[in-house]
């Protein structure tokens, strides 16, 4: 039944109307704009024109082409594809929260309270002294965090030059460091996939501003030397930045602030259950220690007596994003945290880790496990020894209605398959996944071509990404008659 809908431009027809809005009450002759600036529909000749029912069908049918958390298992590693509660969406949709960001503060005390409360929660679960909620995503948080470090070091006299980053890091880490004006130096993880103090110390010198460390790292392994690493850094006058995108692995179990972390970012769209929306919007709050508080970007929200206040200008780092950040995402995260509460905070991590380890245990005889340290929230296998590639297994999974793991990341693992089930998956789902993987591996052994040509049952079959990059058709073009 699922046919690929036409592009909306091909469904369009001159004269169709999809909107309904009051006509203007004013005549054209009051227009106050020189002719040279006016547009008379130029370039809009082929802009869509459809009726409402056609819009509804277009997007309804498009929606059916997506795999989503709402439709099935989505164990994309490093992405924490947990269930996004519907109550979060409902509350964030309330009109009352959708005020103008420049509204007088006394008219938006509810919104300020939400941000202030969320900040308090985030402090409580991370042990950091303060947060900015402004960054729009994880990468934006990294950028903001590194900028804070730089401002702090600069204030102390020397911003330094280098950010150290383990080779297992997410690509955003080096990119964020680079865009913050630092040189990036990659340091290798050891044979267990983690950083050891010795190899860190070998890289430490007075140019090192900070180490950016993902914890648990992208192998799903806890950086067990973190306290010593922090000490070594501090001794060197450097700071420890923790990429907290994987905080789902130990929320409620340990506070990064207790481990010597100076700056971290969190992904509300991972750990805190806000939806990924097909690639955002997210929210990447950054937490810092006491001594870095002065360098947080604006706005800074505080409670003064009974009233909430926002310091909107001229503070700290300056501004990294318009207004207050992705406020409606913060609403969702706060609803989630309040829903979870003390009783369940720790269970999030415990179940997430239990699930990952259950998968590891059940597949470790079938797949190569390159790093053997304890897994936390995710497990990374390699395609070593198989006669098919990671991508082939991934594509074949699609035929079973399961979204693949993250492929080929982290880069330090050959043909990485990075599997993160999260705590919102049932044992039944894990068992199906495990069984399916075994089936596929059996197929691989017997008939590798079957995997190499997969998928078969998806709305489109394997797509040619090389062709896409070569022909660069990035927008619809009218067919010439």
């Amino acid at each position, binding site marked *: 039944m699922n046919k690929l809908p036409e592009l909306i431009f091909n469904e369009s027809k001159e004269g169709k109307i999809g909107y309904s809005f009051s006509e203007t009450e004013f005549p054209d002759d009051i227009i106050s704009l020189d002719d040279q600036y006016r547009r008379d529909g130029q370039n809009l000749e082929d802009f869509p024109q459809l009726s409402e029912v056609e*819009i509804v069908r277009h997007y309804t049918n498009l929606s059916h082409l997506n795999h989503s958390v709402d439709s099935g298992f989505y164990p994309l590693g490093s992405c924490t594809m947990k269930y996004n509660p519907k109550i979060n969406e409902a509350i964030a949709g309330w009109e009352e929260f959708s005020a103008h960001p420049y509204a007088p503060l006394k008219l938006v005390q509810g919104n300020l309270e939400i941000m202030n409360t969320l900040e308090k929660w985030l402090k409580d679960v991370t042990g950091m002294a303060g947060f900015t909620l402004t960054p729009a995503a*994880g990468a934006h948080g990294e950028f903001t965090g590194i900028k804070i470090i730089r401002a702090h070091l600069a204030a102390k006299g020397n911003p330094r030059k280098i950010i150290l980053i383990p080779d297992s890091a997410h690509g955003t880490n080096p990119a964020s460091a680079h865009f913050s004006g630092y040189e990036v130096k990659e340091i290798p993880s050891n044979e267990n996939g983690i950083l050891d103090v010795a190899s860190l110390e070998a890289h430490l010198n007075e140019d090192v501003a900070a180490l950016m460390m993902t914890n648990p790292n992208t192998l799903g392994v806890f950086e067990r030397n973190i306290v010593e690493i922090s000490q070594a850094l501090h001794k060197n006058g450097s700071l420890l930045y923790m990429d907290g995108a994987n905080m789902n692995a130990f929320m409620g179990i340990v506070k990064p602030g207790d481990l010597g972390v100076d700056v971290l970012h969190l992904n509300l769209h991972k750990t805190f259950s806000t939806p990924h929306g097909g*690639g955002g919007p997210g929210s990447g709050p950054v937490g810092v220690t006491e001594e870095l508080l002065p360098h947080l970007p604006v706005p800074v929200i505080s409670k003064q007596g009974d009233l909430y206040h926002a310091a909107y200008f001229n503070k700290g780092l300056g501004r990294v994003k318009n207004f207050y950040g992705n406020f409606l995402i913060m609403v969702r995260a706060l609803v989630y945290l309040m829903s979870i509460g003390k009783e369940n905070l720790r269970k999030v991590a415990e179940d997430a880790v239990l699930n990952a380890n259950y998968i590891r245990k059940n597949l470790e005889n079938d797949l190569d496990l390159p790093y053997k340290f304890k897994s936390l929230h995710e497990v990374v296998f390699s395609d070593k020894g198989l006669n098919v590639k990671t991508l082939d297994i991934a594509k074949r999974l699609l035929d079973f209605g399961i979204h693949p793991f993250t492929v080929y990341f982290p880069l330090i693992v050959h043909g990485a398959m990075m599997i993160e089930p999260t705590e919102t998956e049932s044992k039944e789902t894990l068992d199906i996944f495990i069984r399916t993987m075994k089936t596929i591996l059996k197929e691989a052994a017997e008939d590798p071509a079957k995997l190499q040509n997969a998928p078969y049952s998806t709305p489109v079959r394997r797509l040619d990404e090389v062709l896409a990059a070569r022909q660069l058709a990035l927008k619809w073009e009218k067919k010439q008659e």
Partner: protein
Amino acid sequence: MRYFPLTDSDREEMRKCLGIKDTRELFSDIPQDKAYYPLDHIPPAVPEDRLLETFKEIAKKNKFSEYLSFLGGGAYRHFIPEVVNHLSGKGEFVTPYTPYQPEVSQGSLQAMFEYQTMMAMLTGMDVSNASLYDGGTAAAEAALLVARKARKKNTILIARNLHPEYIEIIETYLRDLVELKIQYVDFERTTGTVNLEDLNKKVCDDCAGLLFQSPNFFGGVEDSQKISDILHGKDALSVQVVAEAMSLPFLKPAGQMGVDIVVGEAQSFGLPLGYGGPYLGFMTAKKDFVRQMPGRIVGETLDVEGKRGYVLTLSTREQHIKREKATSNICSNEAWCALRAGMYLATMGKTGLLKIAKSNHLNAAYFVKEIKKFPHVTVKYPKNFFNEIVLEINNMTVDDFTAKLEAKGILLGVPLKWFHKDYEKAVLVNFTEVHKKKDIDRLINAIGELK
């Protein structure tokens, strides 16, 4: 807890399978003296019924919606058709990740491709990316793009009448990139538009390009053509920033005025005010720039059977491939907002969009025309605006004036003294299609009563 599908007996079974007694053993790598810290200070779980009550109480503390608001300045209240809310709220659109597996993501991908096309049409450009965080960061990304593209040139010109928050963001982004310099180009105090003389003066051999905003922060339309000509004369790039995307259908497209890159904020296309976010940064450009663009880009391709399909493309620009050499550090951005914008644009359609955009302007024009009768206020730049104007208060302080209007249930606009010390007397007043004649008349009368 309803979000945990594991039962206690599942957990027990799984622990058995793992050969552990206590789940805590899985966390033994964590310094045990710090692990399992007491949770006493954390509030207990709130069940769904009380959650609703609690947030209703919080919502009541927001009084904004009871006011007739003319606030703008980069965040605009426009009408959103209900179909957009309904369709974008579908779980199948809300809950997938970035479409890394295109075979099961054609819904999101095709919608993005359509969005890209519409943004390119609206700006008159060749290519569009699939979203950026917001207008301010998009402007900063554009500054970086210009610098990358220009290679050896290290000066970025910024027009002083750019949205002050955008300037602040650009400053934050560029501050630590030692090789880059910002130079400011002034604006004419009499018109609010870019001072072309100053531009001529500042544009130099080291200039990579200029970021100017049109409509500018004061609501005025710039002569993008003249600006671009001056820049191109020095081999510098012309980047037009647009904070009010609703101006696009009404104003001559940047692509026809010599502009190289257009960036800005597309919140006006189907996103609620949302107290400032999530919004939608956009970037479109001439073909030349595509390999230097930040953010996701969707391209068309074929599957093994020759069927049309869409994929994320040009990913060699991106951080997960290029790491520190990527065109941007961006990973997740605002895909769902772009989806909504696409839905909004398709729903309004050509006809609706042109009408709505024009009615924004007409509403502002009506106000400008009518308010002339009062000597105690002045429209500072009464020509070539889109939907926003600067109103000067001549008979009392801005604080007193806005407070008096507030007491009548009206929010006049954004006091410009927040941003510019030369504008102590001025308020930025915004009109959109949500204002009816009766609303504008109410404002005019209320202003009249403050003589």
